[in-house]
C-alpha cells in the first residue's frame, strides 16, 4: 500500500468518505439515514472536544451548553433579529467563540475535578438560561426553527441533510487533523504529556488551552445550529447535563486523542440506545453495563484499544 494511504489526513479521510457513501447506499430507509445524520452531528462536536480532552488534557462537562447556544442561535436570531437563517449559524458560532474566549482563561486555570465542576456549572447556567427566558426561547417546551433556504430552495429532506452533515464532518476532521499536525498541535500534545515540561520548553500553556477550548466550543456551536435547522425544532435538553456527559463519553469510548476513534465513539453511543429500545425497560441497565465493561477492559477507548490488541496478536 502506498505510504500516503496510511496517513490519517489522506487515507483516513478517504476511508471516512467511502464509509459515508456506503452508509448512504446501504441505508434501507429514512430511519437509518436519520440515525446517521445524528451520528455525524455528534461526531463534529466530538472531533473538536477530543482536541480539548484528548490532546490538551482538559476535561469539559459543559460542552452541550455551546451546542445548545448554537442550536438556539439558528432558532432565535432569524425571528428576533432578522438575521437570515443561512447566516445565523455563523453569527452564533462567532458569538459562542467570543464567549468561550472570555471564560476560557479563568476556567482553564483550574485543574482536574475543579475544572470539571466549573465547566459543568457553565453548561448548567446556559441550560437554565435557555429554559427560563421563555419569551425568547419558548421555555422548556422549546421552539420551532425556520427552515433553511438556499436560492429559494427549501432544505429539509433527509438526503440533503445527510449530504450537508457528511461534508461538514469531513471538513471539520480535515481541519482538526491539520491543526494537530501544526505547531499548535505539537504544543497541545506536549501539554497533555506534562504541563510543566511544556512550560519549561517554552510553550505558552494558557494560550494553547484557550485555543483548544475556543475551537471545540465553536465546532459544538456549529453542529448545534445544524441540528436545529435539520430537525426544525429545539429544546433546552440539547444543552443539558446529560448531553454534555454523552459527548464526553463518546470521546473517551472512542479513544482520547484519536480523532477517528472519537467518530467511532459517536457512532456507537448514538446508535446504541436506538437499537437497545428493543429491550424496552432493560435499556438503561444494558447501556450502563456496556459502558462499564468497555471502559474497564479497553481503558484507552475502542479504537486505540482494538489497534493495540491487533498489534499484539500480529507480534506473537
Amino acid at each position, binding site marked *: 500500500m502506498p505510504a500516503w494511504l496510511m496517513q490519517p489526513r489522506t487515507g483516513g479521510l478517504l476511508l471516512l468518505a467511502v464509509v459515508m457513501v456506503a452508509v448512504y447506499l446501504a441505508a434501507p430507509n429514512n430511519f437509518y439515514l436519520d440515525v446517521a445524520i445524528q451520528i455525524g452531528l455528534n461526531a463534529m462536536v466530538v472531533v473538536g472536544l477530543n482536541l480539548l480532552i484528548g490532546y490538551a488534557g482538559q476535561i469539559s462537562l459543559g460542552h452541550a451548553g455551546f451546542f445548545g447556544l448554537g442550536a438556539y442561535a439558528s432558532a432565535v436570531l432569524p425571528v428576533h433579529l432578522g438575521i437570515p437563517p443561512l447566516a445565523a449559524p455563523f453569527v452564533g458560532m462567532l458569538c459562542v467563540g467570543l464567549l468561550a474566549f472570555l471564560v476560557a482563561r479563568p476556567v482553564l486555570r483550574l485543574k482536574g475535578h475543579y475544572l470539571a465542576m466549573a465547566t459543568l456549572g457553565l453548561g448548567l447556567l446556559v441550560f437554565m438560561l435557555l429554559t427560563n427566558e421563555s419569551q425568547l426561547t419558548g421555555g422548556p417546551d422549546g421552539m420551532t426553527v425556520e427552515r433553511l433556504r438556499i436560492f429559494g430552495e427549501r432544505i429539509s429532506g433527509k438526503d440533503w441533510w445527510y449530504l450537508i452533515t457528511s461534508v461538514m464532518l469531513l471538513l471539520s476532521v480535515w481541519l482538526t487533523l491539520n491543526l494537530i499536525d501544526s505547531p499548535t498541535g505539537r504544543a497541545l500534545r506536549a501539554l497533555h504529556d506534562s504541563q510543566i515540561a511544556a512550560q519549561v520548553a517554552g510553550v505558552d500553556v494558557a494560550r494553547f488551552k484557550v485555543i483548544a477550548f475556543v475551537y471545540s466550543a465553536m465546532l459544538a456551536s456549529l453542529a448545534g445550529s445544524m441540528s436545529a435547522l435539520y430537525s426544525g425544532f429545539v429544546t433546552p435538553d440539547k444543552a443539558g447535563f446529560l448531553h454534555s456527559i454523552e459527548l464526553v463519553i463518546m470521546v473517551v469510548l472512542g479513544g482520547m486523542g484519536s480523532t477517528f476513534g472519537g467518530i467511532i465513539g459517536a457512532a456507537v453511543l448514538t446508535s446504541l440506545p436506538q437499537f437497545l429500545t428493543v429491550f424496552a*425497560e432493560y435499556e438503561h441497565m444494558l447501556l450502563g453495563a456496556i459502558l462499564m465493561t468497555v471502559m474497564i477492559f479497553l481503558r484507552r477507548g475502542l479504537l486505540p484499544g482494538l489497534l493495540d490488541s491487533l498489534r499484539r496478536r500480529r507480534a506473537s
Partner: protein
Amino acid sequence: METFLQFLFSGLTVGAVYAIVALGFTIIYNASDVINFAQGEFVMLGGMCTVFFSLWGLPLPVAAVAAVIVTSLIGVALNKLAIEPARGANVVTLIIITIGASIFLRGLAQVVFDKQFHRLPSFSGDAPIDVLGATLTPQSLWVMGGAAVIVVLLWYFFTRTTFGKSILATSHNRLAARLVGINVELVLLASFALSAATGALAGILVTPITLTSFDAGTMLALKGFAAAILGGMGNPLGAVVGGLLVGIAEAMGAGYLSSEYKDAVAFVIILAVLFVLPSGLFGRRGTERV
C-alpha cells in the same frame, strides 16, 4: 426577619442532605481517588428501598435498616466489580465508569421498582413548629438532626478509632499504609460501604419531604459534587460547609430572586469562589509534583 428565617430553615434542610452526599463523595475520593458519580443513586436507593420494603409489609424502622444494608452491599459490589478491576486507569475513564454505574443502577431501580414518585410518611407527624415567627416541620428537624448525628459519628470514627485512622492513613499514602500492615483492600471496601450507607440514610430522611423516584439521584449527585468542590475536594469539613452553603444559597435565591433561577444562584456562587480560590474554600493549596 420571619421570611429570612423561613428561607434559612429550608436552606439548612436541603443543605444538610447535600452535605451528606458531599461527605459520601469525600470518603470515597479520599480512600481511592475516585469521584463516584453514582453517589446520588445511593441516596435514591435508600429512599426507594425503604418505600418498597414497607410496602411489602416490613415495619418502617426495619425497612429503613434493611434499605441501608442493601445499599451498602451495592456500594461494596460497585467497588469489587467496577472500580477495582479498573485500578490504574486515568481519572476521566474512572469517572465514565461511575457514570455507567449510575445509569445501570437507575435502570435497575426502574425494573425492580417502578417509574412512579413515592413518599414516606413523616417520622413524627406534620404539626409545624413555630420558631420566632417562622415555621419548621418536624421532618426538617429529623433531616438536620440526622445529618448532625452522621457528621459526629463519622468524625468520631475517623479520628478516634483505629480502623477509621487506617482509612485516613490509606488516603494519605496507600503504599505507606500497606507497609505498616493496613489491609488496603478492606479499607477500600469499608469506605464504599460507609459512603453508600450514609447516602442511603440521607435518602430515607429526606424522602418524606421531597418524594423520591428512580431518577432522583442525578440532581443530588450534581449538588453534592458541587458542594464537595466548593468546600475543597477531600476535606470533610469543607464538604459539610459546602453542602450547607449550596443549600442556603439555593433557598435564598429562590426566595429573594426567582424560584426558576434558584439552581443558577448556587452555581454562580461556586464559579465565583473557584475563580478566586481555585481549590475551593478549604482545599489544600497543594504544589504539583513534577
